[in-house]
């Protein structure tokens, strides 16, 4: 039997009832039973309750926009660590002013480590890592990545000086100045990444741009608070505890508001891999919040809640990252809202 005949046989079987799996030849209807749609139906059969399918047209169900080529863990890690670093710089500066040396050491060292690692993630994700310095070739206000690169290249060395001075006890004046400067840049470091991902055509990211910076600073504050709760003795961790509560509250409230406002494009935040990470982040942050509030005076409970908050912040960033990719890969999130927009204008 030739290869050709084998291929024929595998696609249709002769049975008592006649031919099965036979190709419909000239009776074929165009556009029916192409692989993609068949797969879609199968997924719907297996999946949870199906919402009535929105009818829209697309080109073979292919995405309209090109999906981000950014990879995990580099970019979600960069988002998480940037938030942690920025908010930790504020805790570090506050600790310096209110004379809480342990909180200061942990926050400043944490800000430096997170800042360096976020840079590593950013550079590692480049298609041409050796050309990282091209980021500093120009300064462009229209590119959040350009603004962010300049910001980080000023910020990270400052956190390094602040951390080194704090850990070694040397050059206290230089250390204090670096601490103050890093606290000034910190809030920008924690929030600009929201504009970075929102300034794309990715529906779930772009549509959420008004709330995204608040989600990001909330998540960053929760992480920095969590770091303080994890590593600072109880006598000095008060501000970290308050910061964590503020962070979780801001993050959850803004996220909820964003999801309600943007409607359909928020679906990926509740579905698939992105949805799973977002849910995990929510559960962890509620655990962390409960531990932070109820575990006062208990070192172990406090430390555990700190760890949960760090993990929740990371999970949320991973969730936002994957939800964005999901929304880019499904043409309906690009086409339907644009159609609605056209309808609204008429």
């Amino acid at each position, binding site marked *: 039997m030739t290869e050709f005949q084998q291929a024929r046989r595998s696609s249709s079987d002769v049975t008592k009832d006649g031919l099965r799996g036979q190709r419909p030849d000239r009776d074929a209807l165009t556009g029916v039973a192409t692989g993609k749609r068949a797969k879609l139906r199968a997924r719907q059969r297996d999946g949870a309750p199906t919402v009535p399918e929105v009818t829209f047209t697309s080109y073979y169900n292919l995405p309209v926009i090109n999906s981000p080529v950014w990879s995990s863990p580099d970019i979600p890690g960069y988002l998480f660590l940037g938030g942690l670093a920025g908010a930790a710089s504020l805790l570090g500066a506050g600790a310096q002013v209110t004379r809480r040396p342990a909180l200061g050491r942990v926050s400043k060292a944490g800000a430096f480590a997170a800042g360096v690692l976020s840079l590593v993630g950013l550079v590692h994700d480049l298609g041409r890592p050796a050309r990282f310095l091209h980021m500093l*070739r120009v300064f462009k*206000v229209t590119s959040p990545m350009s603004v962010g690169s300049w910001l980080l290249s000023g910020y990270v060395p400052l956190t390094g000086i602040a951390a080194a001075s704090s850990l070694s006890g040397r050059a206290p004046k230089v250390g204090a100045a670096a601490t103050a400067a890093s606290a000034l840049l910190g809030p920008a470091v924690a929030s600009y990444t929201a504009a970075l991902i929102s300034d794309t055509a990715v529906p779930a990211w772009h549509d959420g741009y008004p709330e995204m*910076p608040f989600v990001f600073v909330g998540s960053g504050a929760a992480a920095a608070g969590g770091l303080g709760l994890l590593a600072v003795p109880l006598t000095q961790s008060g501000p970290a505890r308050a910061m964590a509560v503020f962070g979780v509250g801001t993050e959850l409230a803004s996220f909820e508001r964003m999801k309600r406002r943007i409607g359909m494009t928020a679906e990926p935040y509740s579905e698939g891999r992105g949805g799973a990470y977002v849910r995990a982040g929510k559960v962890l942050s509620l655990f962390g919040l409960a531990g932070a509030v109820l575990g006062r005076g208990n070192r172990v409970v406090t430390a555990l809640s700190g760890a949960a908050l760090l993990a929740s912040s990371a999970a949320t960033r991973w969730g936002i990252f994957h939800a964005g990719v999901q929304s880019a890969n499904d043409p309906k999130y690009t086409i339907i809202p644009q159609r609605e927009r056209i309808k609204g204008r008429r």
Partner: protein
Amino acid sequence: MAPVDITIGRRPSLDGALLGDTDPATQGGYPDHPPRMGFFTDTSVCIGCKACEVACKEWNAIPEDGLLFTGMSMDNSQGLGADTWRHVAFIEQRKPIAAQDPGVAHEGVDVTPLARQGSGTAAGQAAVTPTTPGDAGEFRWLMASDVCKHCTHAACLDVCPTGSLFRTEFGTVVVQEDICNGCGYCIPACPYGVIDQREGDGRAWKCTLCYDRLSVGQEPACAKSCPTNSIQFGPLDELRERADARLARLHEAGVIDARLYGRDPHDGVGGDGAFFLLLDEPEVYGLPPDPVVTTRDLPSMAKHVAAAAATLIGGALAAFAVGRWVS
């Protein structure tokens, strides 16, 4: 090709750079420049030959990126990307198309008098000629050659942190491959899904509107190779006029589905440098129905980021204010 770095300090104003009808080359820092050049792709005469795809790959030395059989009609290149700068879409529909029946049925024709005239039947006397409209059929095949739109307000260019993407004197948008560091920001920024990262290379690539050919007064390879003039190249003003006339003619002939896409300088991207005549909704061809340059919202984004940063500072101050009581 030695593009001047125009990124710092030459933009008249950010508002003009992000919105509305504008001359992109002037906006990009060329006070004295040639007319804005572009493509008008008239899909109503596209025959799906893919000569444009081939010519583009040949001229620009684009690497082979997989030989697939997708089963999507005759489309095996699927969409624009790093290694596909012209992409021919194929759509099969159960819809009648006007004036494309070849009219090969000759039943009602008495061939004897025609034969007497010899081979040169005058067009007016022939019952059937290649241009005689027949009855509308129940099937139509849409073909359309897609390409980078060279937007008036180009998101890819706006977000590029290295200045690798730049505006040429022709008003087109080009990547400088010796500058691109593969950060990938331009890729999700493009509302059309044009630019992409080349595998194994790491950098972003897209149509240059054959900048090299334009610079020496030649037309782009795809337009040069198009056998039906579906891809027309020229000064954008002239193309827009030509497209308006063509649209009016098609509407007159009863092709009511015909429409121009990317022609309007007041749309979400300030009009496309490469625009199209389509015979159905844009999304049927894989094009976004109402694309908007993402940076249009950037001023608002910046305000929200500033407000969030201030909120974080407020939260930290509050945390230290209450910190003594919550240890």
